[in-house]
């Protein structure tokens, strides 16, 4: 019996049958979850620790619900873009890729509106209090992730016009999609845990003045 067989056929296949780059994206997303984890945890630990306002009473839940819906719909568009390129329908791929990127940009627009309103209407900046530091850093990093995704999607779209993204390498689109959906999921967590939980009963906390919040509501 031979213990090391050397044969030319054994090349080019991966051990798991999965593509290296796809596995890389999964590993990166696992790692990225460990990046958002401490940011979310820090926000939750500091939720009731700000010694001056404003706090979660600045949230505009209806508006953020719309922007959340926009981001969710971008995931749907992403799925359709991937389906397009996998079936070789370049028109479908290009339309839905552009749509995904545009919806992502609309979401960023909402976030810029939100940050601006917080600053001007309530005087809330990252320097104001613990709430401002943790909330704006967390959502700011999420926004940066969306921005990277938007740039990535436009790059894929332009590369497709130069013939560099085709049906054969639909994996490039699939990997971008994995990233996009992950960033979406992180937002679902942020919307649920930071916005909805944060806004729940916030008036009471403000009225009771548990932490002597000053200057609430601007």
């Amino acid at each position, binding site marked *: 019996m031979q213990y090391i067989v050397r044969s030319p056929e054994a090349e080019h296949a991966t051990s798991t049958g999965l593509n290296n780059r796809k596995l*890389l994206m999964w590993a990166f997303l696992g790692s990225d979850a460990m990046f958002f984890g401490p940011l979310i945890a820090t926000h939750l630990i500091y939720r009731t620790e700000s010694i001056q306002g404003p706090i979660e009473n600045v949230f505009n839940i209806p508006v953020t619900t719309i922007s959340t819906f926009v981001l969710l719909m971008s995931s749907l568009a992403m799925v359709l873009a991937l389906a397009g390129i996998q079936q070789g329908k370049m028109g479908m791929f290009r339309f839905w890729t552009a749509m995904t990127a545009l919806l992502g940009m609309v979401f960023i627009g909402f976030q810029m509106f939100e940050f601006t309103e917080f600053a001007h209407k309530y005087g809330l900046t*990252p320097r104001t*209090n*613990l709430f401002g530091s943790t909330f704006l*850093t967390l959502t700011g990093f999420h926004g940066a992730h969306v921005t990277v995704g938007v740039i990535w999607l436009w790059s894929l779209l332009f590369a497709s016009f130069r013939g560099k993204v085709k049906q054969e390498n639909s994996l490039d689109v699939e990997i971008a999609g994995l990233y996009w959906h992950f960033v979406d999921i992180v937002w679902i967590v942020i919307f649920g845990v930071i916005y909805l939980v944060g806004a729940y009963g916030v008036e009471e906390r403000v009225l009771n003045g548990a932490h002597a919040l000053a200057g609430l509501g601007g």
Partner: protein
Amino acid sequence: MATNIAILRRPLDPTGAWAWITTVDHKKIGVLYGLSAFAFFILGGVEALVMRLQLAQADLNVVSAATFNQMFTMHGTTMIFMVVMPAGAAFFNFLVPLQIGARDVAFPRLNALSYWLFLFGSILMNFSFFTGSAPDMGWFAYAPLTGSTFSASSSVDYWILGLQVMGVGTLAAGFNFVITIINMRAPGMTLMRMPIFTWMTLIVSFLIIFAFPVITVAITLLLFDRMFGTNFYDITAGADPLLWQHLFWVFGHPEVYILILPSMGIVSDILPTFSRKPLFGYVTIVLAGAVIAFLGFGVWAHHMFTVGMGRWATSAFAVATMAIAVPTGVKVFNWLATMYGGSIQFKTPMLFALGFISLFMLGGLSGVMHAVVPVDLQHQDTYFVVAHFHYVLFGGSIFGLTAATYYWFPKITGRMMSESIGKVHFAIMFVGFNLTFFPMHFLGVLGMPRRIYTYAPDMGWSGTNMAVTIGAFVIAASIAVFLYNMVRSARVGQPAGANPWGAATLEWSMESPPHHYNFAVVPTVRSQHPLWDEEANAVEPPPLPYVDESSIHMPSPSYWPLLLALGVTLVAGSLLVWQAHAIAGLTMGAASGALALISVYRWVFEPPVAAEVAEGAAAHH
């Protein structure tokens, strides 16, 4: 690409300086990591010697208190992030593809990027010595003391930004090795046939990709506090004074295992070779490594027993800390059982491996003592703790990495290291090590605190401190012998041949040093000890089928990893410039950001194998 200007044409010449600078070959990158780590080892060692001169006797004035603070901070940071981690990475790089039967890592250019980020991040942090603001707050940089209120100079910023750049490189390396080991194994190389060193590399890589994001967050928040006025660590804004400690040690304790597990893997590969016996309890050793890594995320607060976390948290972390000693003990017993009844050859790698086991065990025993909270309260911040972690990090990690150097040097260079000089090296280093660090236990119990720059003559510490200082210089002498042995052996050492030690694993099946493509034909593996089984069953390795070298397409060298790393490092540097001069900083940031962005795009659209090479090979067929 037609737009290529001549200077950025891909350097396809296999030799010369540019071949090293633009290399994506895992073996060359491994050598670069090793040489850089050794250079930083000397730098960190000099920092230690300065400290030992200052502490040799009471009331000395060799350096100022401020310089002393810089020395212990940079000694710790250097040894952890610029020596032990990259030295481990040197062996990951060189060995893992050879041990699993791959021609390279999964992402060769990403691998080059990891190296350059490590090197440039290290240089960025050490650059602070020239601006007179070297980090001086201890390697764990406790906030709020490192906030701008208490640390106004840019020393903390250098530390944060240097570490941030290195951290990105480390994360990239972690991803690369996870994917390489999971996905690039040769046919038949099942997970449970992998050499233990590769197993420990896999576990360390998982630790890296889950632990490093946490330190990234911790130092990013600190940077935001210092540069943009946020309040994360600002007590006056209601911040929790323990937030930094928790975030830091959630990273910091897995980091301890990132530092020691590679050496455990090294020793697990060396012991069977020189005991002429298979490793005892292969599966248990693998599982013990995995359990250590898993529990490693649940013991961080044992670094914080004295901060007043309350009884429940303290008890839970004490119990978890005792639990993690169990899989560690399992490994030690497995190593002992591996040697039991074997025909042991005391070659230099084996001596260092035995040194590792004995010294690491002492460090482990003084470590588990700290799981007992009342004992820890006495030892916290004394020299006893310094003794403990040098027994695990020097007696453990460095002895293991030295063993690896002697063991795999023949594979890397094709030449044996001198056995006689190696034994002298071991003897001096073992004596010097124990002379330096064993007396520190006594100093700690006698109450000498860490990080003091001098002490009064009537404390009763002077004689012991002198012994420690003498020991430190004995270690320095042993490192000089080591360096001499490496330089000499690389030039005139005995030719090694494929398998000089009679080892069992795949990396010894090829010529030394290996061809740039590693395996002419990718092997199919049918055993955990393929070379021993071939030998025992008198199987002649079948004659290799003729393979035309030019038909093997290895990834071509590339400038973009280097330029991307440069861009990222300069962006980090521009934040320091920005603090002194806003316009200059913004200009520098924009320019280096553009460099990084262009590098990313050129990298993405650059084929892994240069067009010239691919065409040449196609014409050849």
